[in-house]
């Protein structure tokens, strides 16, 4: 059968879109690689957890999961989409689910893959014990395990105080929080935050609790190095200037057995790039994002994007965007009259402004600044998969590789199994420093299938060697 709509990603945008689409009468299928809906932000607790104290994220996620369970739509969890092809009548999606290979035909696709964590290289970031800030939230929300016994929380953006607060709330120790931004940037974006008082109060509460617990919170500071023999044992931090460039020799060293490191979120664009949609660079929304109209229509007919994958704006905005996109798709497919589309979408469009303003202010705090890469030592690995150092990559750029695919083909940087997810941002900043280009001018590598690593055995599906048609031998 052919679905009207396939939604990829069951976070705030995708799950909300599926609910709205099912209510509008669309034959909808929802695919997500996690075990349950909720995305990274409202991640469900893992099967090992039988009972745990309720959290605001957990409660919101449970409400969304209950609403999703009440609608009629096919759903595939723990399923990873590794290819999407567009053909004349729609799209063909290839995925791997726990039961095997999955092929889905659909008239329209809504990409709701959310954001991915941006982590810039620092000396020692490949040591066991260093995890992403987003990874720390997943570990604590889903598994209820702490990232370490004495943790340094470092980087930039609102996740810093959230992660540090979650660690101390759950009985762990935070050695220090190390924030590249000055406190003043938070005060400066207050006007954008006032419209969402609930979120603002929560953020202020985290800071207050950290202060009350005596956790050292350093502004305008960054990690100089992470050291240890086979695992993190010491972290050295130092001051940075307004460009996040290391400033002076004065440093402080902490004993720590874990580092949670992150520099904001970027839209996960591999699927929209694979399908050939136009993209643009907008640092204020996390970097490269697909070009869309107000309802999430991309430049590819039938392809929509909602949520952080369309530009990082946070969960509140993503939920509304998902619903608006679902209604727009229903109208495009002729399953909703224009009048009915207007009636259903108007109240959502009215509410989305405030949520977007808050989300964009948070994302703007994490726009990478050029000094960030100055802390990377020449021998620090930038591409974890291919073992390439800053020196290796800069040598390639200086030799004339001045766009992403040239660096890729010259060094294999970004061609390892992570698909360039943890090196592209650092490489972009290194290249911009040498070539004088902006990230938008430098570009982004071509996306190719598989979108996720796939075991070869799963691809052959029901294939049997005996089914191979063997042509008769050519006459002598």
């Amino acid at each position, binding site marked *: 059968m052919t679905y009207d709509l396939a939604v990829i990603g069951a976070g705030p945008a995708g799950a909300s879109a599926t609910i709205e689409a099912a209510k509008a009468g669309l034959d909808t299928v929802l695919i997500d690689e996690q075990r349950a809906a909720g995305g*990274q932000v409202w991640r469900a607790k893992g*099967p090992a957890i*039988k*009972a*745990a104290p309720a959290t605001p994220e957990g409660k919101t996620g449970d409400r969304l999961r209950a609403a999703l369970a009440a609608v009629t739509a096919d759903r595939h969890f723990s399923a990873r989409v590794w290819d999407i092809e567009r053909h004349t009548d729609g799209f063909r999606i290839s995925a791997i689910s726990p039961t095997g290979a999955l092929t889905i035909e659909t008239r329209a696709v809504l990409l709701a893959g959310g954001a*991915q964590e941006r982590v810039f290289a620092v000396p020692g970031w490949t040591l066991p014990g260093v995890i992403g800030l987003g*990874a720390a939230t997943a570990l604590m929300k889903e598994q209820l395990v702490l990232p370490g016994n004495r943790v340094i929380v470092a980087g930039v953006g609102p996740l810093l105080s959230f992660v540090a607060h979650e660690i101390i709330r759950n009985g762990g120790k935070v050695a220090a929080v190390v924030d590249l931004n000055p406190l003043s940037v938070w005060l400066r974006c207050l006007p954008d935050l006032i419209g969402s008082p609930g979120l603002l109060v929560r953020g202020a509460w985290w800071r207050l609790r950290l202060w009350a617990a005596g956790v050292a919170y350093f502004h305008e500071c960054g990690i100089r190095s992470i050291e240890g023999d086979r*695992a993190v044992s010491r972290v050295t931090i130092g001051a940075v200037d307004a460009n996040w460039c290391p400033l002076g020799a004065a440093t402080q060293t902490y004993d720590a057995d874990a580092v949670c490191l992150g520099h904001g979120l970027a839209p996960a664009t591999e699927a929209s790039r694979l399908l050939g949609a136009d993209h643009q660079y907008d640092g204020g929304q996390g970097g490269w994002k697909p070009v869309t109209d107000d309802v999430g229509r991309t430049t590819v007919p039938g392809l929509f994007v909602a949520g952080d994958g369309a530009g990082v704006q946070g969960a509140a905005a993503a939920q509304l965007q998902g619903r608006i996109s679902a209604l727009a798709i229903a109208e495009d497919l002729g399953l909703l009259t224009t009048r009915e589309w207007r009636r259903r979408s108007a109240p959502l469009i009215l509410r989305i402004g405030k949520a977007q303003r808050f989300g964009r202010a948070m994302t703007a705090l994490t726009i990478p600044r050029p000094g960030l890469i100055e802390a990377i030592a020449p021998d620090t*690995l930038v591409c974890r*998969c291919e073992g390439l150092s800053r020196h290796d990559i800069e040598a390639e750029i200086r030799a004339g590789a001045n766009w992403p695919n040239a660096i890729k083909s010259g060094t294999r940087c970004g061609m390892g199994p992570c698909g360039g997810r943890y090196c592209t941002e650092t490489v972009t900043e290194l290249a911009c420093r040498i070539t004088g280009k902006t990230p938008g001018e430098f570009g982004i590598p071509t996306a190719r299938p598989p979108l996720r690593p796939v075991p070869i055995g799963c691809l052959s599906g029901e294939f049997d060697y005996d089914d191979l048609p063997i042509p008769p031998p050519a006459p002598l």
Partner: protein
Amino acid sequence: MQHRPRIQKGVSRAATVRFVIDGIELDAPAGESLAAALMAAGIGTIRHGPMDGQPRSVFCLIGLCQECLVEIDGMQIEACRVNVSAGMQVNRLRPMDPIKP
């Protein structure tokens, strides 16, 4: 690496099961992600950098970075995408010799 603490306050977990990694027997609540179970058990190095041979461990916890790749039943899979079950046999990937440029 030191053991990563499981949050205890107000939390109840599934019954503990035993699994094996490289011949070492470990206990974890059934259904806990293998990555979390290895962190809780203080297993530091999960694999070695494919090209540099340096110790690596859990990094992204969402199945993207491939740093926690292990072998189970002859298949390579991310430890953060597998749940612990009784009698599960896990092998770490053979450390590769560092490749010198």
